[in-house]
């Protein structure tokens, strides 16, 4: 260990990622858990601390930046992805993390969200989804369920919510995942996978707002209901859930069917394949779609992950290719252009 010390290489700990600023979220806010899990896994990522950049928008989620001892910009409402695009295009060596919320990304920043998915920069895009506007004290958000009663909808909202994973897939996302604040180990796994994935890694994090939308996701984490309401995906493993893992999901053509494993057996169950976009599209619809009248459990984990060329690398490669072919043009040549004349 002596050589390590001589080179001043100390392994980082979660403390190295805490700042001296007081954390100002409400007591019981799900954001505390997200911060904790990030600070826990970041020392393990192997990214030099100075290369980490957090870019956030506006909302409770976006205060996150102030609490991570890395580089960071707490920017303006909805624009974190647009700013992060510039950061990553300018310096592809940085590890860039966008922190946003459901209002920030799906309402005011909706355009940047879909184009970020399409352009596929190699950055990570975390959306803390609490299905409510909290920083403005409780209005329905674009992910609030229809009929939601809030200060702006005292008689219930009349709008359908976005289904974020379906939206991301429709926008050509290459990595789509879901996790939740009350499952620390799962969240750590998903964050690590997002970091490892080359491309835009979209992580939807169900996050409880104890003040304005309490218990919105408890069904997916409470012991009583979790095993019936949630299904945890693992690549190469069959889709199994239920109190005693007694239920399985198989495909009848392209229609998902819930089966009793005791009767059906395991042999023809749907095997999760992260690279299968058709299946990912179906999984994303385990949200508000019923198939043959049956409700399906909400999937957590990596719904889809299939690498394709990333924007920042493409930009760099194109520049290098053209430079090697044409050579850098001297400034004097740019100033003169091709057609000049002399006046004596």
């Amino acid at each position, binding site marked *: 260990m002596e050589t390590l010390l001589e080179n001043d290489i100390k392994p980082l700990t979660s403390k190295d990622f805490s700042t001296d600023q007081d954390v100002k979220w409400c007591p019981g806010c799900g954001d505390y858990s997200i911060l904790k899990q990030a600070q826990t896994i970041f020392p393990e990522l192997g990214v030099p601390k100075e290369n980490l950049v957090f870019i956030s928008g506006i909302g409770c989620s976006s205060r996150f*930046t102030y609490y991570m001892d890395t580089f960071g910009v707490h920017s303006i409402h909805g624009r974190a992805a647009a700013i992060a695009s510039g950061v990553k295009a300018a310096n592809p060596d940085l590890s860039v993390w966008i922190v946003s919320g459901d209002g920030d990304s799906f309402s005011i920043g909706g355009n940047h969200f879909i*184009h970020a998915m399409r352009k596929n920069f190699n950055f990570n895009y975390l959306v803390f989804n609490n299905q409510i506007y909290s920083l403005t004290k409780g209005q329905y958000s674009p992910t609030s369920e229809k009929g939601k009663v809030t200060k702006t909808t005292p008689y219930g909202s009349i709008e359908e919510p976005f289904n974020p994973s379906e939206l991301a897939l429709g926008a050509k996302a290459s990595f789509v995942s879901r996790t939740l604040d009350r499952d620390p180990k799962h969240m750590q796994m998903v964050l690590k996978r997002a970091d490892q994935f080359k491309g835009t890694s979209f992580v939807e994090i169900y996050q409880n707002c104890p003040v304005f939308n309490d218990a919105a996701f408890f069904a997916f984490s409470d012991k009583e209901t979790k095993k019936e309401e949630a299904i945890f995906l693992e690549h190469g493993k069959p889709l199994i859930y239920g109190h005693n893992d007694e239920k399985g999901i198989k495909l009848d053509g392209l229609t998902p069917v819930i089966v009793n494993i005791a009767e059906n057996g395991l042999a023809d169950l749907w095997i999760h394949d992260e690279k299968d976009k058709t299946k990912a599209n179906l999984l994303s619809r385990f949200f508000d779609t019923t198939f043959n009248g049956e409700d399906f459990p909400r999937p957590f984990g990596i719904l889809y992950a299939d690498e394709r060329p990333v924007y920042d690398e493409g930009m760099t490669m194109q*520049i290098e290719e*053209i430079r090697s072919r044409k050579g850098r043009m001297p400034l004097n040549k740019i100033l003169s252009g091709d057609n000049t004349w002399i006046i004596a």
Partner: protein
Amino acid sequence: MNTIGETLNNSSIGIEAESMVVRFSGDSGDGMQLTGMQFTDTAAFLGNDLSTFPDYPSEIRAPIGTVAGVSGFQVHFGSKEIYTPGDEFDVLVAMNAAALKVDLPRLKKGGVVIANISGFDKKNLGLAKYPETADPLEDGTLDNYILHKVDITKNTKECLAGTGLGTKEIERSKNMFVLGLLFWTFEKPLDHTIKFIEEKFAKKTEIADANIRTLRAGWNYGENTEIFNTRFKVTSAKMVSGVYRNITGNHATAIGLIAASDKSGLPLFLGSYPITPATDILHELSKYKANGVKTFQAEDEIAGVCSAIGASYTGQLAITTTSGPGLALKTEAIGLATMLEIPLVIVNVQRGGPSTGLPTKTEQADLLMAMHGRHGEAPLAVLAATSPSDCFNMAYEACRIAVEHMTPVILLTDGYIANGSEPWRFPNEDDLKPISVEFLGKPNGAEGEILPYKRNEKLVRPWIKPGTKGMEHRIGGLEKQDITGNVSYDPLNHETMVHLRAEKINKIADYIPELRPDTGNDKAKLLVLGWGSTYGAIKTAVREAIAEGYDVAHAHLRYINPFPKNLGDLLRGYDKVLIPEMNSGQLLQLIRAKYLIDAIGFSKVQGLPFTTTEMKAKIVELLK
């Protein structure tokens, strides 16, 4: 030898002129812009000073033959110094009836009309909404002008008969016939255009041959047709000796940005969204990938500026380019850049507003938006270019100020100078002012802490690049505590920061030139104070007025925020101050408010630049 113009037809009448204005006018699809530009390039090569004004509709292909679809290109060239594209034309090429209808009012009495007969048939007269019995080529409308009726369409067809080209291709070549005829009329050789055609259609030799053949046919038509007997000779201008090129404002802006990147050593990043009339800057910069220029066509105007903010944050020279509606969309993000105190250049190529307004027409109506158009008090530097080539200087200056003073800078140009062109005695890279850049590489606090908002003598905070070991820190749009940059809601701190941000911008005045009269003396009865693209019209008018004995001077602002330090003193040297603007008096408000001077406004908001005639008339009116 390609030069056909060596044998002169002695029977033609030669008219020598000091300067001439030619207006090419036709349908959007008639190729008038290309024809005008080729004519311009040849004139420039032969040593004429010149100024151009492309004037086209916002529809790419408006209904053929209608007044709405008329596209014009105006060039003013001469043997004297030229500062404007000219008020009136000496020669009007009218490809159809609609073109004549639109442009005849600005043809000088006694001027020359070259009319394409095929464009004046019953159908075209109807499309141009001439009354049913009217025919301007025959009914005396043009009695006060020299009219040359040429069947350009028919001549082109005959010239290309048997070449195997389709009707469409043949139709498309008729602008070359016009160009050839004009070259004959002005005694200009064809070489330059022939070289251009050969290069442009290097892989389509049959098209190149057809164009060259038509070009020569146009020349020969002038040479051989008895009735076509007027020729003009405009000798070369006495310009400052040196090497010149022709350049448009948008092109000059683009290479000004590249030059600043090169001299500062900062990689160039442009985040932009296409918008008329600014898009050509994005087009141009996209060509320089070999020089490492990164152009990012963003999903919208907001993403354009935000991506630039991101790139600036990483330590690059970051630019966003736009026009009025885009600047409106970018304002919130520019407020963020003001708060973050990072360098950012915003180029606003102004057009007629509000809303979609007049996208292809010019205006200077975004000055107050550039000055004040943000929420909260968010001061930044504002510069304005005076002419096509000056766009280079001011783009370079915008970058220098942004980087050296850690601030957003708005550079105002407008459609008139962005699309217009002029000869430019371009600089050598060694003559460009250095741009100094510093990044903070280690903690700057006495206790080894990082203080992102600790300021230097210019009140400028340090630029800290992500990736710098040990310099991790957070910044954002919430109010900053002085020095530390931490979030602060302290009332007095906010007031301090508002003042510091303003004072930082005011201090830029120590690093820009003082204002001197461009023409005339430090004291006079009248000062004409302009800004931006009104330069040429004011300069020409003031020179003429001085020559006629009027006591007048001209000063021109290129630095608007902050103003040059001596501006107040300079203004007080004149009995009267006249401020002409292509808006309803925006600089006028700023000058009156700041210096308590009873300046007089002169406003034109027609989507068109001032003419020298109207400028001079105003000067004379005030001095009578």
